[in-house]
């Protein structure tokens, strides 16, 4: 006889993905709601602590989510043109400014709400990052092109790197405080950083070389890069390195060995779509309702401060860096999505033996609302900037 409880447990994720996919398509057709917003709603509702269709997070799901995120970060890194920063130093300046302003603003607010020094610092570093995954999904979904599109993507990649760097340094500092071991502190910050970057750089040189060897350079390289991303994310995950930095670095380094994804495979095609459902459902399902209600005040204070800091930092240099003030503001608006890795990082710190999760859970409210509303703001910013093709156009 079939045991129903067992069946539900086994089918939880397939059913969740089916529901999320259908709801996503339906809402997109109906009111043009970005698909990933719907995935977040579905994930949150089905979470173990809400309806409870989805089981408590298991390690394999975390790895899959990391891979999904890794693919998007790779693609993001692959589209970054570092020479642009040299040609237009004002862009680099606006990146550093908006990141620094965000850090300071969030730190002040967190301290004001009574968080400990370590927690306030961690929160401030995590808030610096704009989610490259969200940005990239919306850009691909809307087929947008223009300065807001280009810049928000570049700024997201940059502040993501800055954020991970700052985060790891603060983690080192926290580990030093709690364990007193200088080695452990250095390992969990500097060594992890260097090794993550190194792994990505090596892969970025190795894979294009392999592709040359197989004489597949002129053709579609999507499969090769997918396999490589899965491999190095799994490796980084297993070595407790930063999969985020590794994947981004891989993309950046592969790009400079100049083999480009076929345009038809933007976003890794159907595989990318599938993994993005999984990722965004997973992220939202790790949020708990009781945390959401508990941390509302702090969460929204942080969102507001972060938004103002980002719009301010970017708009300040808009004219100098060659765009209108209006587009500057819109880039700031599109930078709303907090990086999904906030949660992934939180998950991984559990394995690191530091229990920051519960203390930082006040971010849940901010994270949830931004998972849902962030994509809508990105979409609106791109539409207001006239960078999305007219739907009526032939």
């Amino acid at each position: 006889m079939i045991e129903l409880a067992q069946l539900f447990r086994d089918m939880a994720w397939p059913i969740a993905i089916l529901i999320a996919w259908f709801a996503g398509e339906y809402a997109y057709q109906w009111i043009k709601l970005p698909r990933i917003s719907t995935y977040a709603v579905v994930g949150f509702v089905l979470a173990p602590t809400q309806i409870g269709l989805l089981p408590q997070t298991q390690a394999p799901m975390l790895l899959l989510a990391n891979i999904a995120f890794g693919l998007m970060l790779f693609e993001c890194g692959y589209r970054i043109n570092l020479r642009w920063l040299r040609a237009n130093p004002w862009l680099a300046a606006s990146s550093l400014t908006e990141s620094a302003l965000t850090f300071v603003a969030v730190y002040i607010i967190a301290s004001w709400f009574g968080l400990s020094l370590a927690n306030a610092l961690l929160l401030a570093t995590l808030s610096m990052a704009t989610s490259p995954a969200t940005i990239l999904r919306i850009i691909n979904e809307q087929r947008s092109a223009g300065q807001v599109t280009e810049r928000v993507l570049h700024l997201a990649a940059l502040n993501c790197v800055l954020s991970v760097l700052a985060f790891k340094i603060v983690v080192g500092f926290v580990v030093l405080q709690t364990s007193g071991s200088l080695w452990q502190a250095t390992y969990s910050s500097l060594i992890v950083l260097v090794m993550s970057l190194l792994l990505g750089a090596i892969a970025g040189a190795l894979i294009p070389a392999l592709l040359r060897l197989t004489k597949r350079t002129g053709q579609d390289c999507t499969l090769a890069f997918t396999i490589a991303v899965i491999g190095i994310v799994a490796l980084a995950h297993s070595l407790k390195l930063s999969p985020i930095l590794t994947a981004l670095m891989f993309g950046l380094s592969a790009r400079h060995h100049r083999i480009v994804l076929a345009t038809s495979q933007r976003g890794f095609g159907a595989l990318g779509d599938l993994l993005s459902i999984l990722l965004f459902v997973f992220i939202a399902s790790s949020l708990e309702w009781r945390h959401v209600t508990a941390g509302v005040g702090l969460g929204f204070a942080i969102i507001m401060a972060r938004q103002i800091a980002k719009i301010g930092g970017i708009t300040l240099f808009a004219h100098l860096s060659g765009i209108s003030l209006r587009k500057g503001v819109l880039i700031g608006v599109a930078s709303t999505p907090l990086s999904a890795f906030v949660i992934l990082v939180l998950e991984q710190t559990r394995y690191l033996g530091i229990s920051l999760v519960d203390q930082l859970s006040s971010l849940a409210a901010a994270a949830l609302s931004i998972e849902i509303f962030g994509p809508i703001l990105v979409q609106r910013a791109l539409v207001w900037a006239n960078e999305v093709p007219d739907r009526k156009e032939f």
Partner: protein
Amino acid sequence: MPLEAFKTSKSLSLGVELELQLIGLSDFDLVAASPDMFELLKRQTFPGTVTPEVTESMIEIASDVHTEYLPLLAQLGKMRDALVRAGELLNIGISGGGTHPFQVWSERRIFKKPRFKEVSMLYGYLSKQFTIFGQHIHVGCADADEALFLLHALNRYVPHFIALSASSPFVQGHDTLFNSARLNSVFAFPLSGRAPFMLRWNDFEHKYFAKMEHTGVVKSMKDFYWDIRPKPEYGTIELRVCDTPLSVERAAALACYLQALSKYLLERNEADPVEDDYLVYNYNRFQACRFGLDGTVVHPKSYEQISLREDILSTLRRIQPHAEALACSAALEHIYRTAHEGSDASYLRREYVQRGSVEGMVDSALQRFRQ
């Protein structure tokens, strides 16, 4: 609307228009960047004219009216530098080339301007397929009859310009085996090809244009996509068969080759053009598009088969004195080198083999334009 009067302009004066590619440096694909470019360009005075084109990944520059090679080249160089500088701030590369080698036509976006939207609705996918990049050269004519004479006298030289400017070997990611694949896209339009054989403006106006207008097919000269067409409001004829070359040096040289050739023809150094010259026109045009400088053309009067490269070299010898009179020998020197070393299309094919990808080829084209 009746045909407007043909304005008089200085005989053999020149104007050059170049349609250029806007390329996203993130992935080397065409990018819908012209609105952002205009936003930035309007902050300073532009050393020439710059206008939007039908899709947002194209931009068009036009020179002032020139009579000599060096000032024309200097102005084209200044416009190039202004565009490259603006592009650098926006992560946009500016490139010549008749086609973008791997753009997907359905990804293109129509510039938000009523005429472009109308054209897009009428022609459907053709208008997006029309994301191709040409060089237009205007030659000033003292009167309308001189313009029509020159237009038809040039018929046998049209393949020269196709082969020398050819820079569109790849379309949608694949080698087409053509040197100028761009012209195949132009041919898809119903009113493309050659102009009707009439040598008197009066005849052209009343026996052709008025009748065509009466049929409702055309409203103005703009609706004709001929290889060479008269442009009454400027008092010029406009040669439209050239691909945009990869460098402004070649663009200027082509313009002055046409200038010297026009002087030679206007001084009646050859037998007058007749309707039967056009018997071989489409065949020769195909040879030039497909094989470039290696093509074989049929002489419209003697019907002898000649190598296109040989024909160009002997033409250069014939018009040399006229070039000297116009102070454009340096331009002919450039054309001579091109005929020997090969066109931009062969350069692009070599780069493709060396770099191993179409993206690498675009990168080479970008570098070449900056030089």
